[in-house]
């Protein structure tokens, strides 16, 4: 399976990483972080992203030496069986990510935008359009994400600025919170939030060279981390720890507070389009990654016939949890488990690479 291989540049890489790691800002994760780390939640967010960046960088470094993508790298270092296992792990991680995002954004839509709509209709809507969207290929998805990115960041920063009148800066003083050690521990164990950055290693063959992926990781995940940290701080300063951890949809609640004037009120309704775009992008990228990996390990000539099938499975599984609270509980488990994709696989590969490094020559193009 190869869609216009080798054409993606830094911009598309940045956009892909950003789009796949940012969406949980619009969901309940900010409130969950406040529960765990109180005023140091923003630090925990930074630790998660930092850990993911280091481990993904390690993975990309290994691939820059072995050449090819993560499957090629594992096959070369650990053999075909290990490559199959790694592919299956990532398929599971991204499939679970797709399912959870689909469910949570569908619930989000019902709670904020379309309260009278049928839940299954909204879920199917997201699944179908994500499937249609990825029909164009990962390069187009990356380009669209890159086009949407400036508007997304600008709108998010605008909200942060417009909320300045509500800020209580004392919420950020460093001696508050549950302690630095706990924040670091939670940050490291929740690194799965940023497991999406691994797509750079999965699609390594689609990028121009190793330098492209490295820069895309730095700017993409770095930018995403910055926005998440700023948003966590803004959320903390606006609502404080105790009120903040009660909210189901922190972003929506923040936008509800914005008041411009009597003629331009309730801008949270207009910002629905913003997170709807991000949600479709993130679901599409995750779904495409699942399809891509299946096609890759089975050496299929094209993954396109799988798209409707995987999308249908995803939509059905997403509708299984009885309520949003159960889904959020599953997400917490998922974030812990998906940390394996962040730590275990790069560490294992690095070990194998360290042992076999004498036979490996440097490869600048992947």
């Amino acid at each position: 399976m190869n869609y216009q291989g080798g054409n993606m540049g830094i911009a598309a890489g940045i956009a892909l990483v950003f789009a796949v790691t940012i969406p949980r800002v619009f969901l309940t994760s900010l409130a969950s972080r406040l529960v765990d780390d109180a005023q140091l939640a923003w630090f925990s967010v930074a630790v998660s992203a930092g850990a993911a960046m280091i481990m993904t960088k390690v993975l990309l470094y290994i691939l820059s030496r072995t050449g090819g993508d993560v499957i090629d790298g594992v096959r070369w270092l650990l053999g075909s069986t290990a490559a199959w296992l790694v592919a299956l792990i990532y398929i599971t991680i991204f499939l679970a990510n797709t399912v959870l995002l689909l469910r949570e954004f569908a619930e989000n839509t019902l709670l904020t935008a379309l309260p009278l709509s049928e839940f299954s209709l909204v879920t199917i809507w997201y699944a179908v359009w994500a499937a249609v969207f990825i029909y164009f290929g990962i390069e187009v998805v990356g380009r669209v994400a890159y086009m949407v990115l400036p508007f997304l960041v600008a709108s998010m920063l605008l909200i942060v600025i417009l909320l300045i009148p509500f800020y209580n800066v004392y919420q950020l003083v460093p001696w508050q919170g549950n302690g630095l050690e706990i924040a670091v521990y939670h940050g490291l164990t929740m690194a799965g939030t940023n497991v999406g950055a691994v797509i750079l290693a999965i699609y390594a063959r689609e990028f121009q060279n190793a330098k492209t992926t490295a820069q895309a990781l730095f700017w993409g995940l770095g930018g995403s981390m910055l926005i998440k940290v700023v948003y966590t701080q803004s959320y903390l300063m606006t609502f404080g720890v105790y009120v903040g951890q009660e909210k189901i949809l922190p972003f929506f609640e923040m936008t509800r507070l914005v008041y411009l004037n009597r003629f331009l009120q309730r801008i949270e309704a207009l910002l629905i389009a913003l997170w709807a775009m991000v949600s479709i992008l993130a679901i599409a990228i995750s779904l495409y990654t699942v399809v891509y990996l299946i096609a890759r390990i089975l050496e299929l000539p094209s993954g396109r016939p799988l798209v409707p099938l995987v999308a249908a499975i995803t939509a059905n599984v997403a509708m299984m949890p009885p309520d949003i609270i159960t889904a959020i509980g599953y997400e917490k488990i998922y974030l812990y488990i998906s940390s394996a994709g962040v730590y275990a696989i790069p560490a294992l590969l690095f070990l194998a690479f360290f042992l076999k490094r004498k036979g490996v020559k440097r490869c600048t193009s992947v």
Partner: protein
Amino acid sequence: MDDLSGNFIAKIYKSVKRLVIYQPPQQPTRFVLQETTENSKISCPAAMAIREGFTELTKLIRYAKRLSGAMEEAVQIIKSVQMAKASPTLKKLSITLEKQQAELNPLLLAYDEAEDDVDNLPVSASLGENEKTIARIYRLPYNTDLIIHRFVISVEPPMPSMLIYMDGLCDSKFINSIVLKPLMYYKHSGAVLSDNEVIKNLLTQYLPSSKTKTAMSFGDVQNAVNTGDAVLLLEGEISAIIIESKGWEHRSVERPVFEQSVRGAQTGFGEMLGVNTALIRALFNSSDLIAEKLSVGIKSKTACVVMYLESVANPTLVSEIKRRITGIETDYITDIGILEQFITDHPNLPFPTTLNTERPDRVAAGLNEGRVAILLDSSPFALVLPISLFSLIHSAEDFALLQPYSSVVRLLRWVGVGIALFMPATFLAISIFHQEAIPTEMLLAITSARLQVPFPTIVEMLLLGVAFELIREGGLRIPGFLGPTIGIVGGIILGQAAVSAKIVSPIMVIVVAATGVATYTIPDFRLGAAIRLSSLVLMLFAAVMGLVGIATGTLVILAVLCNMKSFGMSYISPVVPKSGAGLDVIIRGPVYRQEMRPDALNPKVRRRQPSISLVWRKQKPSGGDSK
């Protein structure tokens, strides 16, 4: 009954029958268009062989008759006392017969007859045979505008000739004074045409025209006649002379109709291909401006010119465009819009991937950037390609106006695009699903205005949208000054009447009218149409899922745009993928800072002016303040 035919009872019976029984009136059989058999050759090999044999035989009989006639003529000359005088005539006749005999070689004859395509038939030495071939090609005598003028060139011996041209396509004055007059009247004593160099002598001594050439086959003869040239066929010559004499009626160079500008050039293309290329060349006095002539359409063989700057344009792009044009297999291409659909990457999408312009200055600007222009005979438009979406928002006079103003105007056009694309859909989404986003007073006003409207908002909007499009289309089709009047009157009266009749609400009229006006800020008509269609798609998405629908629709439209290519170049370059654009995307930079050509075009030479183009600023002025 026959025995009783004269019987009284039988007569009564017949009368009653005539009276009672309905007799349908006698009418000719009604015409019914039947399926035709394929206009192909006879497939049966035996029938084909018979046909070929018959034609060969007819040809041989004609030759035999001519030979016997020539022999009788020779006998008469020998018997007469004017032997010396008649010898050149006899010699010429014998040479002609020899040449014709050579054509009647059994092998050649069989080959020619087996050849189905008359284009490949060679010109015969016999004028009679040539005339028969011409009659076959042009289906004479049905074709009445083909002129075959037979005359004799007054040389020693006199040479029977034939001039063929298409009535109306040729300049008749030119034909009479430059072609026929010298050949028919210019008779100087003892003029002799050497047998070996008849054509050469005619071209150098008798035809005062610089644009003449010879043709060996009927394919070339047809091409020349169909494109307005005259063809001279001579007895005893196995080649014809093509004399350029194009002279059909056409418009003179006029102001552009659809791309008018306040400043900038006021010249528009016409229907004459040569004039159009000359207009571009007049703006671009460069010897490396190439104008390659191609032919499109199997039957129409319309002339098409591909223009590019050899030192700038990417050769791969040029060869790809030529490959696509020469790779078209269709009978007729009569308009550049049709040609565009044959060669473009996405003919099924509404977004145009070429710039369609009637202004030579826009073509010249495009060529200077490394783009390629295509012109088609009889079409007053040129295609400039490849093109990006952003270039289609530029207008002809952007560079003629000062930079700050033209940048603001460009931004205004983008606002127009935004309004045309999103306004109806956003109104629908907010009024149906997200009423909380509307200020309370406005919400009350909208609700009260809509109270007596019987339709859902989407139906109301579609009704008004269709009405608007009808008025627009009607205004376009009505000729003359009546069009705009109908548009204005129809718009105002219909809008007012619809509001009064409570079919639509006033706010909806405002939304649809604002959207319609915004569409007209888009300089390219086809892009405007594409935006209107996209707007309709977004409206449907919004009607189903509100702002979530708009977000979904926007992503799908963006994906389509990102996936599109204009002759290998990304349609939304230089934004995605990011590339250098020389300060000419949305905001227009100063002309002296337009140093580089668009990177996405991959031109041979990227720089179009030095980094310091205002050299005079570095020079010391000759007068003024000495400090």
